[in-house]
């Protein structure tokens, strides 16, 4: 606040202002406010200092955690022996795979050469000597047997490659777990991937062809319009339950028991219930009925089924008739 500098207090014979040019009344009025403001500022500064100190401490803790994390990751990567993988194991695996291809190709060609040679043999070639013919065929067969030994070597090479892949998988998995890495969302396909996708280059399926030759033949025979996905062509299960149907509305209402009449539902929703009363037995002739009555009075347990009636009646009919 700018004050007139020339004003001095009148009691000092001046103009009524302090020598530094401030109005004492105003100074007296402002002083406590200024002191209060300064105290608040100091409190605020102290508070901020504490905050920043805490912040520094937290940040240093975070930095120390990150440093530990990096050190651990470095340790894991060191344990992975990446140079060993890139310079030793993967080239070895690649060489093994190339050797497998080469070995199988050589063996196949050897076998095919032998087969072609045998196909070309004729008895005339050996001057009609069957023994010489057999010897030549046996030689070729032995060559085929020898060539088949590639299978053993190939198996060993394949197991070496599989071991390398397992080691890499294990180490990468452990590193990912240590670093807490999650798989990212797949990015756009590379040019090679896109080409393979567009040209349907899927490669051979594991465990035999995915679509068998018979199925392909059926597709060619029936025409491709009729080919339906498997699910659609499956017949519905014969034991599928039918949905509940309303009874026809023109049926007369079924008479109900009196006890049920009180809270009965609307008649149109009632379904015919199975009768609990046993089916009525057909009326028998008088003599038959008599015979049955007698059987009931007998002490042994005798079934009242119709099939049993005849023999029983016969046994009892004799005393009846003599009576």
């Amino acid at each position, binding site marked *: 606040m700018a004050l007139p500098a020339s004003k001095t207090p009148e009691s000092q014979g001046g103009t009524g202002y302090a020598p530094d040019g401030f109005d004492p009344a105003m100074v007296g009025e402002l002083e406590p406010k200024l002191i209060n403001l300064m105290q608040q500022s100091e409190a605020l500064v102290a508070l901020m200092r504490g905050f920043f100190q805490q912040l520094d401490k937290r940040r240093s803790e975070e930095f120390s955690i990150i440093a530990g994390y990096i050190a651990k990751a470095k340790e894991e990567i060191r344990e992975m022996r990446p140079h060993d993988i890139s310079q030793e194991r993967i080239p070895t695996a690649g060489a093994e795979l190339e050797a497998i291809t080469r070995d199988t190709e050589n063996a*196949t060609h050897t076998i*095919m050469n032998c087969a072609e040679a045998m196909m070309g043999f004729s008895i005339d070639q050996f001057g009609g000597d069957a023994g010489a013919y057999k010897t030549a065929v046996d030689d070729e067969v032995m060559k085929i047997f020898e060539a088949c030994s590639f299978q053993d070597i190939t198996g060993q090479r394949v197991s070496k490659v599989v071991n390398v892949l397992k080691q890499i998988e294990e180490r990468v998995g452990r590193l990912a777990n240590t670093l807490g890495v999650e798989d990212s969302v797949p990015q756009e396909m590379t040019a090679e991937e896109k080409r393979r996708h567009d040209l349907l*280059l899927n490669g051979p399926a594991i465990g035999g062809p*995915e679509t068998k*030759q018979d199925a392909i033949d059926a597709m060619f025979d029936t025409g491709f319009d009729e080919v339906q996905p498997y699910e659609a062509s499956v017949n519905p299960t014969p034991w599928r339950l039918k949905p509940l149907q309303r009874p026809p509305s023109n049926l007369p209402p079924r008479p109900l028991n009196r006890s049920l009449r009180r809270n009965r539902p609307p008649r149109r929703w009632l379904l015919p219930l199975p009768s609990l009363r046993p089916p009525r037995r057909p009326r028998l002739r008088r003599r038959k009925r008599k015979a049955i009555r007698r059987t009931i009075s007998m002490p042994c347990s005798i079934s009242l089924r119709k099939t049993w009636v005849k023999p029983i009646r016969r046994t009892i009919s004799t005393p009846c008739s003599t009576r």
Partner: protein
Amino acid sequence: MLGSLRKVGRYMAIDMSMPVLVVDDYKTMLRIISNLLKQLGFENVEEASDGTEALDKMKKSSYGLVISDWNMEPMTGYELLLKVRADDGLKRTPFIMVTAESKTENVIAAKKAGVNNYIVKPFNAATLKQKITAVLGDF
């Protein structure tokens, strides 16, 4: 066209001296198919190691049948089929795909592209003969 070819094939013998082109990038497979074809009686069997070479050969001389693998570099059998069917001079050539690509989508795509038959690897001589018969007729 193919229907009439089949009908003709039922009543007429196939000219076994007609040139047959086998396309595969594996020499072993080329040799196997060629030998099988020779065993079946085809006298003139030629080989190509990829789609580009096969297309060049087809443009230079005509073939009575093409038997091609699918998975080849740089031009696949599927691309070869598309190019053959798009070419007025070649589009009537019977084409059989012999491949390990056994997904239904592959079979449907090949059929849509105009393949005459489809053989899944591994196959035997009887299957090969059966498919050739289905395309060209009895022989």
